[in-house]
């Protein structure tokens, strides 16, 4: 009985929405073929994988790599540093592109708006090898910052060698480099706000800041929410390039992160297995956070990823 109803329901659904499902076919096929089929590679994290032996030939070692990671003397340090740097980047860095978009949105002069937008997103295209090199120069003892300090009669400071400054340097340089690019999506969202809403508000006597607070922000809040949730998904994945370029032995305690640690250790045998295991850990944490954040967002009625 039940089965009959189910099949009937399925048929009914298919009939009404067959086009919608059709639309989904190529995309879903893509995900299955190119994302799910290769997913068996995750098992590398549980093996002593060697490319020569392949997955079927490599020895299964269970949690060995995870154990090694968690019991390493450096685990606490790199985990803490990764978490802290990531949180700082989130708290200080996440709002900046939004602010930029709002500011750019208010510019009335066409050429200024276009030019500034373009300028701001250029640093995104430089790799950290280049950008990091520039940061190092700017902060060196003969660089701009120290030259200014000396103008004021102060002694030059080796910023990159100081533990107190290192994390801030990482966060700030990242903000400078990426905010312009990240603001684009917010600009797109702001462009989608119905101008009629602004007119109505202005007629009610609203000032600029009211407009922004009561109209613009709420209208783009779903975009903000989504980007925030997705950001949380990569909370432990900072990437190796930036820190690798900028760190040195004097700041290892505060600057060594999971990714640089894996890079160093992974330069030897079993690099694949160990790196995959740690990557898996980073991903799982990210996934948990996504689910949590999404659930919270829904609870507060802000919609979510799905």
């Amino acid at each position, binding site marked *: 009985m039940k089965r009959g109803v189910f099949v009937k329901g399925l048929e009914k659904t298919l009939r009404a929405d067959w086009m919608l*499902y059709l639309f989904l076919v190529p995309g879903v096929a893509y995900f299955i073929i190119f994302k799910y089929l290769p997913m068996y590679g995750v098992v590398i994290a549980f093996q002593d994988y*060697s490319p*020569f032996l392949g997955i079927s030939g490599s020895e299964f070692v269970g949690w060995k790599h995870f154990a090694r990671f968690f019991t390493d003397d450096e685990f606490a340090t790199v985990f803490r540093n990764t978490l802290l740097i990531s949180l700082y980047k989130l708290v200080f860095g996440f709002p900046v592109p939004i602010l930029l978009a709002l500011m750019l949105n208010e510019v009335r002069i066409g050429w200024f708006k276009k030019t500034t937008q373009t300028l701001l997103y250029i640093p995104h295209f430089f790799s950290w090898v280049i950008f990091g090199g520039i940061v190092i120069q700017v902060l*060196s003892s003969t660089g701009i910052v120290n030259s200014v300090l000396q103008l004021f009669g102060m002694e030059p400071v080796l910023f990159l060698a100081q533990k107190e400054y290192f994390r801030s340097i990482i966060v700030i340089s990242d903000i400078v480099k990426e905010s312009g690019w990240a603001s684009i999506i917010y600009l797109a969202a702001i462009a989608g706000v119905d101008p009629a809403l602004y007119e109505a508000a202005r007629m009610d006597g609203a000032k600029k800041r009211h407009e922004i607070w009561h109209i613009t922000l709420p209208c783009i809040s779903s975009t903000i929410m989504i980007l925030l949730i997705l950001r949380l998904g990569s909370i432990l994945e900072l990437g190796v390039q930036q820190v690798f370029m900028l760190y040195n*032995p004097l700041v290892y305690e505060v600057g060594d992160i999971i990714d640089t640690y894996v890079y160093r250790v992974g330069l*030897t*045998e079993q690099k694949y297995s160990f790196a995959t295991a740690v990557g898996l850990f980073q991903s799982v944490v990210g996934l948990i956070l996504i689910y949590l954040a999404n659930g919270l967002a829904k609870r507060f009625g802000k919609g979510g990823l799905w």
Partner: protein
Amino acid sequence: MKKRTLISILLTAVLAVSALAGCSSKGGDKAENGKNASPSSDQTTVKAFIMGGATFPDGEDINHNPWMTMLREETGVDLQIQYGPAAADEYMNKLNLMLASGDIPDLFIIPSANQSWLMDNAKLGAIMRLDGKLDAYANLMNAVYPEAWDAVTYNGGIYGVPVLADGNSATDNVYIRKDWLDKLKLDVPKTLDEFVKVAKAFKEQDPDGNGKADTLGLIAYDNMLAWSSLFGAFGVIPGYWVEKNGTLVPADIQPEMKDALAYIHQLFADKVLDNEWPITKKAAYEEKVANGKAGLYEGSWAAARSEIQTSRQNDPKADWIAIAPPVGPGGKQGVFGGPKYKSIIAISSKAKNVDAILKLLDWQAVPENRDKFVFGFGQYGENFMYTKKDGSIELNFDNHNKYGYRQQLMFMQPKELNEQKMEALGPQFKLNDMIKLSIQYGIPNAFTGAPTPSMVENQSALDKLRQETFTKIIIGELPVSAFDDFVASYKAKGGDKIMKEVADWYAEKK
């Protein structure tokens, strides 16, 4: 009705995707052979996978050019090259992909930094064992230093052919500005104390005569090996192994290292050593030489062609000379010695034509044949690649660079230093002398073997510990006494195990 339509549409979609997947697209030069390496069946075909990235004149590529033609003719070997990525780590990644997919080339060349990769795969049976097969090839054997074989030996078997750099095993020299010495009326320093006096004078007595206190004493950068002469003065090179009491011990934990660190720390405290060194990278280091801020430093044997040349271009009065490294309180001196190889040629265990490969390598190990690549041959030789002037050879740099790819076809490097080539690059650089000086004072790493299991496991952590500790001691963040804690940590974190393995290795060697 609708259901059938739906299913037929779905089927068509799936078919379309697979059809798309099947067709290849523009530019697929499928006529070209040797692109996808797999073990060759023909007895004289050798498929090699090497690092690439060079540019070619129109119509040429790595398999179609005058040198490849000449090589194939003279050796009788049909060499087919798969041109790989230019960056070493990308090359290694790609090599791993080839291993994973079972498409292993006959021959590939591993940078020395990836030696442990080679030995791991040798253990698994991916690499062909060569001992016994090599003795017939005299030129090949002649091109390899005896101690270099240690690096490719596992359980008595030889798993690769070590290849020299063309600077032989030369590394660094200490360079000083004679014009500054003359200006300040100082002699060329020989002992460590004299060095420090000179460095101090360079810093404080305005040797460039511009009235500004902008010159530096001793300079260094974040890589400690790069200023090894200060450590060599105590007989210890960071990261190296040294012989003591009939066995090998790590230089890092020797009492001499503590003395070295104490001494260098003092230099730092006295501001004789550039205080920016921990955050200085190589380019910035060389910049200080190039723009005339430094007058005493340790640079590569080829420095005359780079930062020293720039220094001369900026200031024609700059008279740089290479000198022997400083002699320390114990009478020791030296810079870090280079390993006797820069890369390793490896042959796949599945290769069917080992003789052809070895024949090729043997031919390449002959200095006359090497010169056919360096200096060209036939119409590509005299008056094309070089000209003879008053008995010396001058390279035609335009063609030298235009056909630069030809040097990638040279897999072997004979032991005899190619003095002619060094001359040809510019006699004013005196490269042959630079090389000889560097080799003379190079302190080699006494451990020449492949990384031991405990090394693979722990070395990166130990290196990090060493870097952190030494840097902090030198700049004064840690007291010199912290060295003793370092030694204890080093031993506890795997250092003991490594030491035992190395000691065993050494005992067996003798």
